[in-house]
């Protein structure tokens, strides 16, 4: 191994020592809470770069982070096109339709305890199934373009959101419901003023799970047929040409999109459920 590799390992050891000292000496300080994970992330990148260069790993197996950054810089229009096709059209459209449908069904089902008792176990069961498997069927039904990807996403996000929303609508305690009754609130009034807000923490839990599922559904569905753009299509063809830096560039975009999507929902959650104990503690 060359000096670059040893240098990276030395950097890792120093950074780890710094992290231990920081974490044990100032465990409560805000800047340490941000600095420690950042330092750890940078260390991983340095170690990756150093080991790939130091051990002369072939770029076909694992490209170095700088190669990936170069591939991103060289392919920005291509990556943007894939991003709009897969994330903005396929995943986002499916996410909105699927989550919207799940919320509406949950509110409708809410009036009938009979349906609730029947739907919840079935929904829980379906949520644990390998739903990705219906991708080939839906691609057959809806064609190769983004509509079929959106359909896969709809089916994938529907049940987790439904189960969480039904649980959320049942989360109000008898005391609050009685209070609504003493004010002679009608069903819609009680729903809008008490039960929907009370269901929000549960709903956001489901929505956050659904963000990752939406991206997975949209990308995996492209493996079963797609127009000549899209992240899943690009990943599978670039692997065929052993253009691994481009593959990793797509993965980086997918990772950033996934984290960004999740972060966006988490931000909305923070604004919408500021009153909930889990948000107040921080």
């Amino acid at each position, binding site marked *: 191994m060359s000096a670059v590799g040893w240098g990276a390992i030395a950097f890792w050891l120093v950074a780890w020592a710094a992290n231990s000292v920081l974490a044990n000496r100032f465990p409560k300080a805000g800047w340490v809470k941000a600095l420690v994970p950042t330092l750890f992330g940078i260390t991983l990148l340095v170690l990756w770069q150093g080991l790939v260069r130091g051990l002369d790993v072939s770029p076909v197996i694992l490209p170095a982070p700088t190669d990936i950054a170069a591939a991103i810089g060289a392919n920005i229009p291509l990556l943007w096109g894939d991003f709009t096709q897969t994330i903005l059209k396929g995943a986002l459209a499916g996410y909105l339709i699927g989550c919207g449908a799940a919320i509406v069904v949950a509110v409708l089902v809410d009036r009938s305890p009979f349906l609730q008792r*029947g739907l919840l176990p079935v929904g829980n069961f379906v949520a*644990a199934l390998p739903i990705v*498997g219906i991708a080939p*069927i839906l691609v057959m*039904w809806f064609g190769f373009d983004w509509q079929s990807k959106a359909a896969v996403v709809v089916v994938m996000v529907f049940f987790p959101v439904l189960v969480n929303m039904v649980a959320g609508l049942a989360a109000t305690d008898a005391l609050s419901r009685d209070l609504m009754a003493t004010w002679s609130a009608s069903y819609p009034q009680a729903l809008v003023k008490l039960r929907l807000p009370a269901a929000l923490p549960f709903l956001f839990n489901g929505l956050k799970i659904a963000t*990752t599922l939406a991206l*997975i559904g949209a990308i*995996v569905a492209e493996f079963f047929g797609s127009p000549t753009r899209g992240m*899943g299509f690009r990943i599978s063809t670039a692997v065929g040409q052993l253009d691994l830096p481009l593959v990793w560039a797509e993965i980086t975009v997918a990772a950033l999109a996934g984290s960004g999507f999740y972060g966006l929902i988490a931000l909305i959650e923070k604004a919408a459920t500021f009153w909930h104990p889990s948000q107040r503690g921080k």
Partner: protein
Amino acid sequence: MKKSILPIVTVLAAIVVIWYAGAVWLNSQWTYDQAARADVEVTFSEVVADTLSQDRPVLPAPHQVAKGLWDGIAGQKITSKRSLVYHGWITFSATMAGFGLGTVAGILLAVGIVHSRAMDMSVMPWAIASQTIPILAIAPMVIVVLASLGIKGMLPKAIIAAYLSFFPVLVGMVKGLRAPDAMQLDLLRTYNASDAQSFWKLRLPASMPYLFASLKVGIAAALVGTIVAELPAGATQGLGARLLSGSYYGQTIQIWAALFGAAILAALLVLVVGVVERITLKRKGMAQ
């Protein structure tokens, strides 16, 4: 529990009815086209009968899927390439290998995180961030790259299954190992118990309910990972490969049968974890 059987049956019956209606509706186009080509008039009852018995329907009727499933499970020798038991076994063994790897990794990392504050602060945010990455989507790439290194067969699939099952176990175990309250930890300190002793006698037993809850999520995730890992072209074994070949050749009944095979496998795996959970918790006196 008994009270919810009737509602569940009702919901399932409604799904079957909707499914039949959907099958008639979606498949009728083909029937009408065939009739128009042959220049014959078809009555409604003939259309219904035909849509429920096509060879390559757009949406197979439930009884066709059930028949395909039965043929796949009981109608073949289990060593046959057409047997769902054979493909299911391939998928099952990779799932279990990956689940085992992921569980061990998750537990070890959780132990590290609970005992080292530096590790807690640096690893935990990244472990959470790693789950917002649609890792499942790059599973086929991992398979192809590992294959170019000469690693084939069960291991690559198991690695993806392990990655997916590791996270729920990690989060559940960290929560579980921190479940004992300050009073219990203080009690062990008054006994002058070492870190190792309080780990084995207090933290580990206390974490069991959390561990099993995450194992159920983890094993379902491992199965999904294995199936997706079987999708890349060239794979010939496993339920995922069965799905893919069905989609290539338009064999819709084969796709649906493989899909239900996977669903049954998932249900069985979660059930087994549930049974082990009940036995363990009972012996520890934690059963609800």
